[in-house]
């Protein structure tokens, strides 16, 4: 198992280092809360509210490898099911975890593979802080997925009504309908004519052939012109529909309805990490692995009144089993394996583009190492100013005994498609 994970780690680094060096849009960059970071205790949040997966969430910190074969400080997360082509039947009802009709049940188990994301992380620590040791490169691999999502019957029915109205509205917003109807009728007539002429041509004598061939060629040319007109209109239709969808108030209200949080979500995650002292592969050792569950209870539209503090509130509980490799007391390079158990929770309030939360996790080691017990207590905030500008901040106390003050503030900003360093 360990060997398989090591091979996967190396292969993923090679494959996705290339992918990661592509130009990343700034709006795709967000704070690195992937399991790979969470197992190392350096994610802004150790308890993330379950979400639908991202395709290639380019949580890219920095790809500088300083000439070594093992990159330092980079991270990426992607969804294998949707990044690679799949022939499986897709379904909006599964995505939204709602029932198809009144006689069916809500889609509670919406597919572990469909919502799985894989993350790969490398971070170099130049000082001893929290769970990280000085002058060590940490590489981690993580997966997470949604296990259960539950919506209420009312929520499910309301979303189905909104979906039905959405479809009607999209049909109304389609552009060039009458123009295309005329062209499609012309196209049909032209095809009938070419079929007729082709039939005559096949049975024609050589004398008749020349004249019919000319008529046939002219009809084919006419058909090509009609086809080009249809193509020309079809090319602009996606932009026109997108603009209409973006400006239509009814459609915007339907989107809000679709994005309402489910009443309960349960996510599962696994992560495995190794440490390379001095970033030398000869000094490689197992660092930590863990499995955890995050369960969120969400309340939509929690408000004081319609105009004040109308946002979403979540209570998230977390339990985590960890297999750790800790530095023995009074040594610098002797490690011993031990187990630990994390438990705690997070409360989060999100209003429009602003989110504020607090999380607390208690870590308890097995009896022999109870002196290592510690906790993590941090406050987090994120504000999306626009698609290209995020402000994020985390402040509090991290796990461990040394340098446990945990601060992570950053502004992700930029214009166009420039690459960005967020560390």
């Amino acid at each position: 198992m360990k060997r398989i994970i090591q091979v996967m780690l190396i292969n993923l680094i090679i494959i996705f280092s290339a992918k990661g060096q592509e130009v990343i849009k700034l709006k795709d960059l967000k704070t690195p809360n992937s399991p790979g970071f969470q197992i190392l205790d350096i994610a802004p949040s150790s308890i993330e509210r379950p979400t639908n997966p991202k395709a290639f969430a380019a949580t890219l910190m920095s790809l500088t490898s300083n000439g070594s074969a093992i990159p330092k400080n980079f991270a990426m997360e992607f969804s294998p099911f949707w990044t690679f082509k799949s022939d499986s039947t897709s379904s909006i009802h599964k995505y939204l975890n709602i029932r198809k009709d009144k006689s069916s049940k809500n889609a509670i188990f919406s597919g572990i593979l469909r919502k799985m994301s894989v993350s790969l992380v490398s971070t170099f620590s130049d000082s001893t802080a929290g769970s990280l040791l000085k002058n060590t490169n940490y590489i981690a691999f993580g997966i997470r997925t949604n296990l259960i999502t539950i919506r209420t019957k009312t929520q499910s029915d309301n979303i189905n009504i909104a979906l039905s109205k959405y479809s009607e509205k999209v049909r109304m917003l389609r552009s060039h309908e009458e123009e295309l109807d005329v062209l499609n009728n012309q196209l049909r007539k032209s095809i009938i004519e070419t079929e007729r002429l082709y039939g005559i041509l096949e049975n024609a004598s050589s004398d008749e052939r020349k004249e019919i061939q000319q008529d046939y060629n002219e009809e084919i040319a006419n058909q090509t012109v009609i086809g080009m007109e249809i193509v020309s209109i079809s090319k602009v239709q996606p932009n026109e529909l997108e603009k209409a969808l973006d400006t239509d108030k009814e459609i915007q209200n339907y989107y809000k309805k679709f994005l309402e949080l489910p009443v309960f979500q349960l996510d599962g995650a696994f992560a495995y990490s190794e440490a390379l002292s001095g970033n030398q592969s000869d000094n490689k050792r197992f660092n930590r692995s863990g499995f955890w569950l995050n369960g969120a209870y969400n309340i939509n539209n929690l408000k004081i009144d319609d105009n004040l503090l109308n946002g979403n509130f979540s209570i998230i509980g977390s339990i985590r089993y960890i297999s750790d490799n800790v530095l023995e007391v009074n040594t610098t390079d002797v490690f011993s394996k031990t187990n630990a158990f994390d438990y705690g929770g997070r409360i989060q309030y999100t209003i429009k583009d602003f989110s504020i939360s607090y999380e607390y996790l208690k870590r308890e080691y097995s009896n022999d190492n109870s002196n290592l017990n510690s906790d993590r207590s941090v406050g987090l905030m994120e504000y999306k100013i626009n698609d290209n500008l995020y402000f994020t901040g985390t402040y509090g106390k991290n796990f461990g005994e040394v340098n446990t003050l945990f601060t992570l503030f950053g502004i992700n900003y930029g214009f166009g498609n420039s690459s960005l360093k967020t560390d």
Partner: protein
Amino acid sequence: MNVVKYQIEDNSNEINISVNIITADGALVTADVDLYINDKKSLKGESKNGEHYIGKSSLGIAKELTNGLLLIEADIDLKLIEESFWEDCFKNLSIKYFLNGGKVDKSFELVPEDIKYKSDLGGTIKTKKYFFLKQVKS
């Protein structure tokens, strides 16, 4: 522009179509089957509630469908999905069409010669597939 000829016979067979749009789960799909015949357009099938398929829909009796033009149009809205998905959604979009009741029952796919365009931002995709219902001898 690509128009596929589907062979039907001069008989009373019912001609049916079903369509399956394979894309990311979070895509909102609005798809229709329209039949153009005798200068008229009639809606023969549609996707409901944003779903990714058009269930088995009857086009009519074979002998009454001769020289009909069938258009299957789909609008795919990716607004519920992370933007980083959009390019893969366009690239990996697959649409399967199944026609039965004609000379042979047959599956077709959206191919590069068909109409498939996206908006500049990539959040909306439009596809069109044409079939001409050609009568052949039994």
